[in-house]
């Protein structure tokens, strides 16, 4: 047993780095803490979502007209989003754990956990996962003083952590309160590990939220563009084949990730003929992450 433990301990060197080593905690124990926290969050979940019907997300209105030649040309062809199938989802919370490990989401201290304040990018609301909806007409981005919250041409509401001053205006202005603020210095408290090198750790005092696994999309875009340039093709990148961590982890495939503007995307196929919903407070902001329930 001791030998297994030792081996587990040695594994840390490969997977985690210096972050959080102050506690000297083993990776397996850390992972267990993560799981416990998710379990707690799922069990404590409360509140209902007030869903209203919405049409299928289309191109973002207005904002792309001004794209100059120097900017990304792929502006109009992509709009990434997700649909969560409420008929399939049973609220198991696996998506939360997958998201946390993928995005190096910090744990919270015990007293915060007791008050139900987690850093999770996915909340359980009304028995279903709820995350940032990546509104096409995002209220949070309008009020961010530094431009740290901004939209990519691909329809992702991105956060530039290094540009964030932590004025928390975006958090206040999000109608669904999908944004989380780093009250703690998680690295110092040993509440976070760099489980995934692709995602930077967030420092104390910045806002964070669901990024639609932006790093996966970025990696895929770069790979695609490299290959396209070698092959001499003019194909546009549509983000085919990319999945978010939560969509990947869902045992019932209730979360579908894709490109709303790509007819071949699994998302568009899954949403065809289904009735789409969004939380009432977000419905008029053109959300890209929606819920599916029943046939249309």
């Amino acid at each position, binding site marked *: 047993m001791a030998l297994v433990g030792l081996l587990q301990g040695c594994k840390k060197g490969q997977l985690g780095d210096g972050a959080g080593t102050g506690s000297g905690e083993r990776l397996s124990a850390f992972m267990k803490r993560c799981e416990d926290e998710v379990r707690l969050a799922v069990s404590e979940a409360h509140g209902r979502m007030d869903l209203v019907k919405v049409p299928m997300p289309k191109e973002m209105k207005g904002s792309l007209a001004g794209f100059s030649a120097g900017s990304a040309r792929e502006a109009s062809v992509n709009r990434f989003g997700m649909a969560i199938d409420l008929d399939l989802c049973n609220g198991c919370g696996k998506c939360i754990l997958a998201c946390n490990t993928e995005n190096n989401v910090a744990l919270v201290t015990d007293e915060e956990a007791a008050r139900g304040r987690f850093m999770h990018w996915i909340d359980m609301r009304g028995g279903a996962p709820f995350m940032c909806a990546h509104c096409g*007409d995002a*209220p949070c981005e*309008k*009020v961010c003083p530094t431009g740290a919250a901004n939209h990519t041409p691909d329809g992702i509401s991105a956060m530039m952590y290094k540009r964030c001053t932590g004025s928390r205006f975006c958090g206040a202005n999000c109608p669904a309160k999908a944004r989380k603020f780093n009250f703690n210095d998680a690295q110092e408290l040993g509440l976070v590990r760099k489980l995934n090198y692709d995602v930077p750790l967030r420092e104390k005092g910045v806002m964070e939220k669901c990024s639609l696994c932006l790093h996966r999309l970025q990696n895929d875009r770069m790979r695609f563009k490299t290959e396209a340039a070698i092959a001499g093709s003019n194909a546009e990148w549509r983000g085919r084949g990319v999945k978010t961590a939560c969509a990947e982890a869902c045992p019932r495939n209730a979360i579908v990730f894709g490109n709303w503007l790509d007819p071949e995307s699994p998302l568009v196929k899954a949403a065809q003929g289904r009735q789409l919903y969004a939380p009432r407070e977000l419905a*008029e902001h053109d959300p890209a992450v929606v819920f599916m329930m029943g046939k249309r």
Partner: protein
Amino acid sequence: MTPFVNALACLLCLASAMFLWRYKSSFYRNSLLLVGFMIIFGVFTFFGGEMFEAGSIPMLEHYPFKMLALSLCFSTTSLAVRRRRYMVLAQVFWLWIELFGGISLFYRGFDIAWTRIIAIAGIAFFSSLLSKISKEMEFCLMVFWIAVWIFF
């Protein structure tokens, strides 16, 4: 808010303006009147605009204040001294309510009534150039304000 109620509001402003700045009326009387108008305008908007039926209609949020501004505009025509200065100030007050009310509504997804704002700004600017405000000019201004209120 129906155009009829909107026109009614304009009439109410005109009526209330009659009571302001009477000769030798005291400081307190004038301000009490203003506060009273404020409340009357609020009640008028609340019921006339059917605010409680349609939930909250953001466009009506600053309506009573606009009415107050219009009423002040009307009332300045009867001032004895420094009429032009206060006329301009009252119009700028109106402009200010329209502009910043519009900006705050713009952030909540409504369009700004630019024609209205430009009209008020224009008349405020040009009335600042008037050297003497005759009875005819007063009448013209009032007609213009009413037109802005009802049509723009």
